[in-house]
């Protein structure tokens, strides 16, 4: 199993988000999480990446619990969160090289330029990120996937703001990654389909606060 989420219990802002949540992502598998806004998709990603800690339950990546990976996290997964962490006052190229240095990958410049061609960004490589449109920014951050060597991709709303042509390209990229033995976990609030993928619909648990409050820290009762 590449990613395993076992009976996770998690609350955010006093709201129960996951109750006994399980998910298994095998090698060369694509899982699409579909749910309404605020159902906890981003929280799930933050949990599986180790930024948030669940109150109960275990999260394992490559059979290793996430809190034991610590320093080597960058070798295990590539995570593209909702905020793209691109600096406005740096050019496209500089942003990518900064990122590559952070994750310890040394690649020749030509290869980076080549990968920029995938989304036809090579004309924009010396533009500042702040001058790009929302869709172009998204494309730049998706280009990171082409450069990464990790097996596991975790993508938060990768198709937001993209045109149809680029969506198809991205889908193709994800399928290629799957064919090469990689696994992808991605979230979407619209019902989309990628061939050969498994779709999971998440709903927030129906909960009501128990009338007899004993401690304010544990006040939910599951219906």
């Amino acid at each position: 199993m590449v990613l395993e989420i076992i009976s996770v219990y998690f609350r955010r802002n006093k709201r129960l988000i996951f109750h006994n949540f399980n998910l298994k992502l095998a090698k060369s598998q694509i899982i699409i999480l579909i749910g309404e806004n605020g159902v906890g998709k981003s929280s799930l990603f933050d949990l599986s990446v180790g930024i948030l800690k669940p109150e109960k339950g275990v999260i394992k990546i490559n059979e290793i619990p996430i809190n034991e990976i610590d320093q080597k996290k960058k070798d295990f997964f590539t995570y593209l969160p909702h905020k793209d962490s691109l600096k406005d006052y740096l050019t496209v190229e500089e942003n990518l090289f900064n990122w590559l240095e952070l994750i310890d990958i040394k690649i020749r410049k030509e290869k980076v330029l080549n990968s920029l061609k995938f989304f036809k960004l090579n004309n924009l490589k010396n533009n500042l990120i702040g001058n790009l449109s929302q869709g172009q920014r998204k494309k730049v951050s998706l280009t990171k996937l082409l450069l990464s060597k990790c097996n596991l991709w975790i993508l938060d709303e990768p198709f937001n703001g993209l045109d149809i042509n680029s969506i198809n390209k991205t889908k193709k990229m994800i399928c290629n990654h799957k064919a090469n033995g990689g696994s992808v976990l991605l979230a979407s609030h619209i019902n989309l389909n990628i061939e050969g993928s498994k779709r999971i619909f998440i709903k927030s648990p129906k909960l009501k606060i128990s009338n007899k409050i004993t401690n304010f820290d544990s006040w939910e009762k599951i219906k």
Partner: protein
Amino acid sequence: MIFNLANPLRFQRLIEKIEPITLNIAIILLLVGLFFCFFGSPPDYLQGETVRIMYIHVPCAWFSLMIYSIIALCSIFSIVFKHTLADLISRSCAPIGACFTLATLLSGSIWGKPTWGTWWVWDARLTSELVLLVIYLGLIIINNAYEDKSKADRYSSILAIIGIINLPIIKWSVDWWSTLHQPASISKFSSPSIDPSMLLPLFIMTFSFFFFFISILLVRVRGEIIQRKIEVIRFNRMV
């Protein structure tokens, strides 16, 4: 035992029993103490009649430190064990502590006018006490700044832990820097350098202030618990 009391509802029931008792004790002690302050104690041979300010100034100063240490302890507790009651207590302690610190500063400055000749001196103890007041204000501000209550509690407890540095500075500033402020007279319990007839009103006033503090704290904690209950009900309605 602490974890037994930690249940806020059980604590609330306890509060409702204790609260009137503490208030009554505080008022009785206050009256007795005031009698001793004005009728039962002689003027000091150095400071004259102004020594009577000491009977309220010193307890206020002690409590300004004690309340801060309570906040700091609760903060450590809430960070380590994530405890609701500790958050409630430290949240409701902060304004009381600020009031005691303000009372200390004002009464001290009134005492300073006839004794030192000025309202204010920039010596180590006064400065650090003023810093304590500012830290209290910071805690109150943080508690009210965040919309999310649990986040505010976490941040204010972190700030309280940083502020612990100030406590030893206040306590021993008179020993480290030989300043204008007199050193503690009652530090050594075996032979305090103070006359018993003056010690008696001081202690009575201290206990009276202590019970006052407890009763105010209990009222505030009760209010906080009720507020959380209201939040629960509102939340329930939303779902």
